[in-house]
């Protein structure tokens, strides 16, 4: 890579409750565009993103180095990292169901900066209209918009977005992808995404995790062209995204059984 990466992860190792989930993961995130983090269910993509924002559970242990520019991220509290320009959109959206949409957004406001409501409402006019509605009563797509909008209120140096299209209807998937495409024009994104159509549309670089390690890095479009490779790494062909691959439950159960056998 000719340019300095915005984020570089080196030899990241995470143990949770005695399980060695990430075993020395290293990759870089380019300073522009979307870098996609791929891998089968339960391989540790979410764990990677959470380790980057410092959200490892108490029974977890993180080793290695994570750098944003010259700055080391490990061992810094999450709220500091986020205020330093690391935006995190978690898996399953995690909007505050009991609060209104407006309150969810207000929570993300920061002292000393002007929140970019214009930008957010331009992307998601829906959020403006539904300001007084409880976030828990929004549809899945609207909740995802809220989760992304919340992060876009502030300036970010890097966005971490975890499976934003999970469980959404095809039409909404396209909408979310469009938004991410526009967002990625101004801020680099590290995206976890299972929907290969979305990957094809957005991703510039790809990092593939397998068995706790990085199995492949390079140009995302190249990866998608190699059907056999994609299939072996992700368990799906790059041509289509079968419904079975998107159902979480179908893949999780054998995964966790294998894990318990090993433990």
């Amino acid at each position, binding site marked *: 890579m000719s340019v300095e990466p915005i984020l570089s992860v080196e030899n990241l190792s995470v143990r949770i*409750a005695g399980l060695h989930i990430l075993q020395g993961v290293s990759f870089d995130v380019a300073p522009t565009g979307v870098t996609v983090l791929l891998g089968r269910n339960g391989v540790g993509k979410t764990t990677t993103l959470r380790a980057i924002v410092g959200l490892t559970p108490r029974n977890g242990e993180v080793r290695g180095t994570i750098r944003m520019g010259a700055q080391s991220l490990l061992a810094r509290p999450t709220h500091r990292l986020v205020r330093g320009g690391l935006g995190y959109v978690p898996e399953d959206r995690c909007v505050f169901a009991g609060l209104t949409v407006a309150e969810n957004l207000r929570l993300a406001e920061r002292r000393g900066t002007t929140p970019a409501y214009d930008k957010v409402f331009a992307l998601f006019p829906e959020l403006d209209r539904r300001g007084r509605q409880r976030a828990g009563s929004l549809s899945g797509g609207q909740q995802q918009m809220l989760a992304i909008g919340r992060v876009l209120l502030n300036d970010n140096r890097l966005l971490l977005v975890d499976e934003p299209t999970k469980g959404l209807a095809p039409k909404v998937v396209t909408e979310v992808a469009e938004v991410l495409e526009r967002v990625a024009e101004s801020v680099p994104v590290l995206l976890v995404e299972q929907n290969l159509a979305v990957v094809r549309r957005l991703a510039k670089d790809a990092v593939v995790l397998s068995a706790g390690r990085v199995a492949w890095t390079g140009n995302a479009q190249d990866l998608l062209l190699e059907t056999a490779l994609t299939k072996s790494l992700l368990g799906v062909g790059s041509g289509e995204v079968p419904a079975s691959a998107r159902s979480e439950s179908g893949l999780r159960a054998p995964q*966790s*059984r294998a894990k*318990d056998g090993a*433990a």
Partner: protein
Amino acid sequence: MTEVKSPEVPAPPAAVPDELTPGHARWHGLRPYLPLLALVVAVILPYSTVNLPGVFEGPLNSPGTLQLLAICLVFGGLAAGYDLLFGRTGMLSFGHALFFAVGVYGTAILVTKVGLPLWQAALFTVVGGTILAALLGAVALRTVGIAFAMVTLAFAQVGAILVARNFGGLTGGEEGLTLDVSGLPSALVGVANTVNLYWLALAYLALVVFVVHRVSMSPTGRVLAGLRDDERRIGVLGLDPYRFKLVAFTLAGGLASAGGVVYSLLVGASPHVTSSELTLSLLVMVVLGGPGTRWGPVLGGILYMYLDHRLTAFGSSDAVNSLPAFLSHPLSQPLFVLGTVFILAVYFFPGGLASLRTRLHPLLTTLSRRP
């Protein structure tokens, strides 16, 4: 190790086999018999007339000392039983004193008010306590973690209310109940027979240690340990955490009511045994001793009760009274001292007394290796 040829290079200490350090070998050979040895010493202790001034008020075989020791033993057993919940299964119950209180009051009421012979009273009490534990556990275990703690606390409060309100004059309210000695075997009555109660308490302790040990070594015990470490994993294995927890809860409840029977013979029934304070002290005993270990909770229970009794004497001693008031007043409160020690232990001594050995081990090996 074969490449270490030059005599100037000392072999690393860790490479010295155990057999080469004679003290070590003897120690290792003896270790399995230490509990037995301790038991034998405890059994013959009442034949000793040794005086330990400062430690006990009278000689070892005096009734006062034996009574104190017996109380300590009962609480050692009680703490070991409680550890089946807290240390070995990870359940934070604040209601354990309830089952102890059932044992205490059940015996006292059945002997004194109903007039049953002791063995029947004891049997009914322990069976009743076990059933009660099963029933309450079935409800309380629908919650987990902190909510479970609160619910068990509330159930224990029922016991406290029942005893305090003295329904039908059964419990004696504030005064408590003293056992009607006419219904008791003569070997358990009178100051001269305190030694028999001491042996009974010792037998109770041995029973609890044995049962807890057997359970934790059994397949069930391994599931319980799994629940403590990560409940979800047990669920994934297709085992029902609820049932296993209920078994542990019921067993611990039964053991506690058996302890209550012994305590009732020793001291009689007083409303203090129903207080939430007692449950909290059980937790203190286990944590001080070392949760999840075989001897930690026993030691914790014994030591706690000993200190609880002796600190009162210590608090009114001249040494403390001569201190300025801001020191002497708090120091005369055993619970102040114990509570503070407990907080410090949580911070600085997470493994409790039982971790002392591993902590001191490096020190001991260094000392024993000195020529």
